[in-house]
């Protein structure tokens, strides 16, 4: 099966079996390893990507489902080598321990800030509630998203 779609603004075509997941295509075929496998059940959020701007799990979605659509992964957040304000804020707040969950969280946070530039703490928590973090970095992650929002509004 041949599937054509856009990944991080680049046109891609892959030849794979029908049931191949989007996550496997991204990681194993396109070398985009920033999107991570956590559970394969849409329960943890480690594999979150944007599909036409909406956060979606890549683990259990057949790649055919994104045919003709636009996928953004964590690798696509930076522009011309410059980190996205969210990525920079996560570093500034040292918001992470093992870091395994961060790619997916950054994706959902980007979707949130794209539609709501001034989210409250509880709106951020709600937007990230599909994501699990086992190391307990949530307090810093919440602060980092607030900080990035402020930076993007020019208020930091």
């Amino acid at each position, binding site marked *: 099966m041949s599937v054509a779609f856009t990944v991080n603004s680049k046109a891609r075509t892959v030849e794979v*079996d029908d*049931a*191949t*997941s989007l996550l*496997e295509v991204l*990681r*194993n075929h396109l*070398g*985009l*390893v*920033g*999107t*991570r*496998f*956590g*559970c*394969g*059940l849409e*329960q*943890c959020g*480690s594999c979150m990507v944007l599909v036409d701007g909406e956060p979606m799990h890549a683990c259990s979605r057949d790649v055919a489902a994104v045919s003709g659509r636009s996928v953004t*992964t*964590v*690798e696509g*957040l*930076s522009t011309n080598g410059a*980190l996205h304000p969210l*990525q920079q804020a*996560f*570093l500034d707040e*040292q918001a*992470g*321990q*093992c*870091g*395994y*969950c*961060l*790619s997916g969280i*950054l994706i959902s946070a980007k979707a949130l800030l794209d539609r709501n530039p001034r989210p409250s703490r*509880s709106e*951020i*928590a*709600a937007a*990230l*509630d599909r*994501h*699990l*973090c*086992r*190391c*307990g*970095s*949530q*307090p*810093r*992650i*919440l602060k980092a998203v607030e900080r990035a929002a402020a930076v993007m509004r020019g208020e930091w």
Partner: protein
Amino acid sequence: MVTAPLPSSLVDNPRLDRWIRFLPDRTVRIATGKVEIGQGIVTALGQIAADELDLTYGQVVVLSGDTDEGPDELYTSSSHSIEIGGRSIQLVCAEVRAKALERAALRLNCSPADLAVAEGRFLQNGAETGQDYWTVAGEIDLSQTVKGTTAPKATNAHTVIGKDMPRLDLPAKVNGAVAFLHDVLTPDTLHARVLRQPNRGAGLTSLDEAAIRRTAKGAFDILRDANFVAFVGREEGVVEAAAVAAKLHATWDKRRPLTQAMQEAAWLKDQPSEDRPYGAPVPSVPPQSLIQATYSRPYVAHASMGPSCALAEYRDGHLTVHSHGQGMHPLRRNLASALGLPIESITARHLHGPGCYGHNGADDAAMDAAVIALRMPGRRIRLRWRREEEFGFEPVGPAMLITLHVDLDDRGYPADWTTEIWSPTHVQRPGSGGTLLAREALADPPAPPKPSDPLPERGGGATRNAIPLYDVPVHRILHHLTQDPPVRTSALRGLGALPNVFAIESMIDDLAARVGQDPLDYRLAILSDLRGRRLLERLAERCGWAARGAAGTGKGLGLGFARYKNRSAYAAIAATVTVDEEVRIDRVWCVADTGTIVNPDGARNQLEGGIVQAISWTLKEQVRFDAHGISSLDWDTYPILRFSEVPEVEVELVDGKGNPPLGIGECTCGPTAAAIGNAVAHALGVRIHDMPFTRERVMKALL
């Protein structure tokens, strides 16, 4: 001159060149056996080395977890990495710095005392000498044995230690780079999955390979050796599908059926046990005023965000394994023993994995990969566990049932204290009380190991923090070590400290209530330890303890306190909670004394993480069983704390300068559970003795 005994890591690895090497690019490579497991240790060890050698932080490169070139420091565990690993690096660097200055002084015809070091360059009276570490490096014999007698810098001379240092590994973890072992996906990689033996001793009676191939649709090999089965192929999705199908097309004999009752700590009480008494003899006179209460914590999971993974390649008679386990040298020994290979023919290297909080599935995954690699020489094998395999087969944190028997004096303070514990072992690592799963599945499996548990003087397992730090004149422990627990148990963050501190601090609050004393005042009345008193007093200021209201309003404020292992870092925690039908943590304050702090922001990050994880254990978590084994195999059946449930967390580090640095990863867990327990008791007016504090338990307490 240092006269204290050498840290164990230096005793085990005395040659200087196991620790330090001057590289031609004007950097210094420091090697450590401790590994990054999400705690920021590599960053902190680099700070220690930079400070001692008077280098910039950027001039230090840290090699971590490499059996070919680095020191054997056993496991990255027990909050020892700074206390022992950091101290070792400090002593090595002090000694090598002195040796370098001696050589430079000879060249410059001056005394070493005339020389200072700035960014690795040697200065005399503030002027450049043209000499530096790298000009004299060739004249320093690093094959020598460390003496450990050169005194490191005084604490007040530190310039890198004590500074907030951003984590070295974090940039790769936010920008999508190859950050984890799981991400190493070379084109020649063969993916592998395993069909797990459901329990020790179970025998594979049939495997319908044709049916598995019909389902998985794709090219792959099936390796079968006794009760070990693996699926290996180029497409990851195909071998995954094969492993999923295999479970449905395999039959086993000698299954050990579990029951739901076994998942509760209370089940342990009637099981065969080895009774291990410690401390004071049992009193010959009857107690005066005996108070007894029982507390429990069920089996809990590591529940790491990513399943275990390993890479292995067997080429030209040499096995190279990459693992995210806690100790590469122990892994190499365990693999050599389990595979029957000479130890020299194995290299084990660490790569980052998802958060590790103890003995999880990483070592077993490494063995799985190695077993496959030996049968497919020259091929690079990437073995990854499935999510349900991770939940179903990682060693779990043991359930604990604790009864406290406290005899009070005339004033209502503890006079005689017994902590009675029913618990399976907390340490069942391969090579020390445990075996690697794949070894059990291969032919001639080893006999089941006899259960053991670390002795209290070695920090304890089930007995960790079983004795209060308070002034209790007479105390003892009776540990009933369960002989045949239903599931494999092993080390999980803090071992017995969380349940024991929860029990002790719950009891202390109830004892205070008996005599009508405020819980804080009661603690201060029986705590001579000055560092502990200082923390409690500071915590009270931070959390507004003086304004604490009446009990039973649905809102509660509670505190918990402990010194980890009664000899490591101190943490005092307060929590406010709202209890409706469920418990919600509103806010947490932590004041900690961790001695000299290497990386304050890194320390706060660890303390915060320990708090959030302990909230999750206390409120939500329990490993569940059914007839087939562990039945909580996904995040719906094993829920953990979510973003919307995480409270505000405030952490304050008190100035611990002058005291040795203490490990910080585990010290908050017990006090957090205790603070929640006491806050919930304050909110409800009745105490919940059993974790987790589920809706059902809250409703039961309210009846």
